[in-house]
């Protein structure tokens, strides 16, 4: 999953980005409204964490413009907790609204929820054959027995599972699993796919030559 965080308070931005990366997300950041909108319009993020009070363009404006072209799930972050602000946020097109100061685990849960909803999944658990993927707990069971996956491997499995039935291109996988912070060699992706097949079964991920991968 690739997330964009738009927040102008540097300590907060850094901290959030680190926390999300450690959760297994690929994270892009922007510290003002213009850059944030530019990034958001240029790419299909899995979710955007958007602060309301931003220099150069505030969160409302960004959301309004973004919604003209993209349906990316947006979680608004703000210090305003009046009901009318929540209403405004939700009506303008935000998918959820979190008030500062927030509990980190609550933020994560809401993020997962809006991603899940946009993938039209209503439960946390995705079952594919003998494999059960719990997106809330971020673990995978094979025949009811827990399977050890690295963070990258889990992200790969989760992404393919949420797009089950679709062919996901290598480029998409690169963009959704890795961010600017790491150098991505194309081999790395194959290594991850291969490892997942070793752990969950060779048929788990299907290769479509020339197109990409998918879970059927």
């Amino acid at each position, binding site marked *: 999953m690739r997330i964009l965080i738009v927040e*102008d*308070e*540097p*300590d*907060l931005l*850094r*901290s*959030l980005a*680190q*926390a999300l990366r*450690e959760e297994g997300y690929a994270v892009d950041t922007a510290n003002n409204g213009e850059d944030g909108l530019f990034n958001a319009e240029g790419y299909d993020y899995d979710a955007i964490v958007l602060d309301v*009070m*931003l*220099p150069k363009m*505030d969160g409302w404006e960004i959301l309004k413009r973004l919604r003209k072209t993209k349906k990316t799930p947006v979680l608004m972050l703000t*210090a*305003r907790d009046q009901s009318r602000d929540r209403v405004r946020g939700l009506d303008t097109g935000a998918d959820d609204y979190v*008030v*500062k*100061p*927030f*509990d*980190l*685990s609550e933020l994560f849960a809401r993020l997962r929820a809006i991603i899940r909803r946009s993938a039209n999944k209503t439960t946390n658990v995705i079952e594919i054959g003998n494999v059960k993927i719990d997106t809330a707990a971020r673990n995978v069971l094979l025949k009811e027995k827990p399977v050890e996956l690295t963070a990258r491997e889990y992200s790969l499995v989760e992404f393919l599972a949420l797009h089950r039935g679709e062919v996901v291109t290598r480029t998409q996988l690169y963009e959704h699993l890795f961010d600017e912070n790491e150098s991505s060699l194309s081999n790395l992706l194959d290594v991850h796919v291969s490892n997942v097949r070793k752990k969950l079964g060779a048929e788990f991920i299907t290769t479509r030559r020339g197109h990409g991968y998918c879970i059927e």
Partner: protein
Amino acid sequence: MIPKSIKWRLQIWYGLILVVVLAGFGLTAINLERERQMTWLMTNLEQRFAVVAGALHPRPPGGPRGRMPGELPPQDLRPEEFHLPPQFSTLFDSSDPHNFYFVVFRRGEAFAQSTNALIYHSPDEAPRQPHQFGIGRPLPSGEMVYVGCSTAPELRELESTAWKLAIAGVVILFFGLAGGWWFVSRALHPIENISAAAVKISAGDLSQRINVAEAESELGKLAAVLNSTFARLDAAFAQQKQFASDAAHELRTPVSVILTQTQTALNRERGAAEYRETVEACQRAAQRMRKLIHALLELARLDAGQEQMKRLRFDFSKTVADCVKLVKPLAEESGIKIFTELSPLEITGDSERLAQVATNLLTNAIQYNYPEGEVRIKLAEQGGLAILTVSDTGPGIPAEDLPHVFKRFYRGDKSRTGGNAGLGLAISKAIVEAHGGVIEVSSNKDGGTVFTVRLPVIS
């Protein structure tokens, strides 16, 4: 025991006055009646006196004098010779309720009297009887004639009149009190309305106002005063609420930083360097909160007038020069040049607080300026006022923001990453006004802002 109710007090006073007035009229009426009675009695008594006196010395017919010159005065009559002329016999009749009677004394002894006369043994006895009235006079011939009557009929009449007056008075008093009560109630009714409305407003919605039907009357003015007080209270509460909510709002972001930083750091095992970074970020946030709290408390104290401004004479120009020195490093960071034009100027006031104002204006001028820009600070005296102007060559303040810059938490750019909470100018304004001065701002369309502070030299 004086009752608390105005209505009752008014009623009692009014009642007392009414009673006094009615009693006065009543007594006057009675007195007039009595006088009239007396006059009537006197007339009758005088008439009868003349009759008796005439009967004692009957004049022979012929001429007013009745005596021929040379004739001797008549001899004293003997008692049995005395009689009233027949036409006057009814004058002293007991059939008349007044019971007019007469007694004649000659040489200290009763000589003649009417049949209905009361028995007197001496001339002095007569006047002392109750309910008797009369006139007693000596005649030139030495007899003492006393004509008296009973005043019983008069007294009865007077009594009857008095009763009639009393009853009339009571009835009038009753109607008067009733009328007064009704009138007072009507007059006080608006007060009750105003009072009820005021209670409702002050207990509930301060944005309501009392309906003022007659703006000019005393009650209208009272309602107007109450309304304006409510308006002030409403505004004060709103400002307080706004302040509290703004303050809480400002604290959210630093708290958020601390929370997210610490939660992230504690999510897994970290190295010392990472912990250090987290702790430093928390410290930065805590410092922000500390400055904010300090500024808020200062504002609150200035608001409540609790801050006693020191009143010492000092050279303001030296203070300002020190402030300029203080902010020089900050200016040099952006290559900004500060030009000073400070004339020595002694004023009375709090040098530390005024230094705060000068520093605040200087730092604003530096921060909201273009790199390599200029800041000019000038201090001069004019007309008993110390005038401090700070101008910069920055982008200026948009016209719609100008009236609001001194408001609390107001920042032109809505984000707050400058670490600046937007209280500096509000505090400066409060300090300047506590010294009895004014602070103003003006800005050009082409850029540049000028802040002007005017302080009385002697405060």
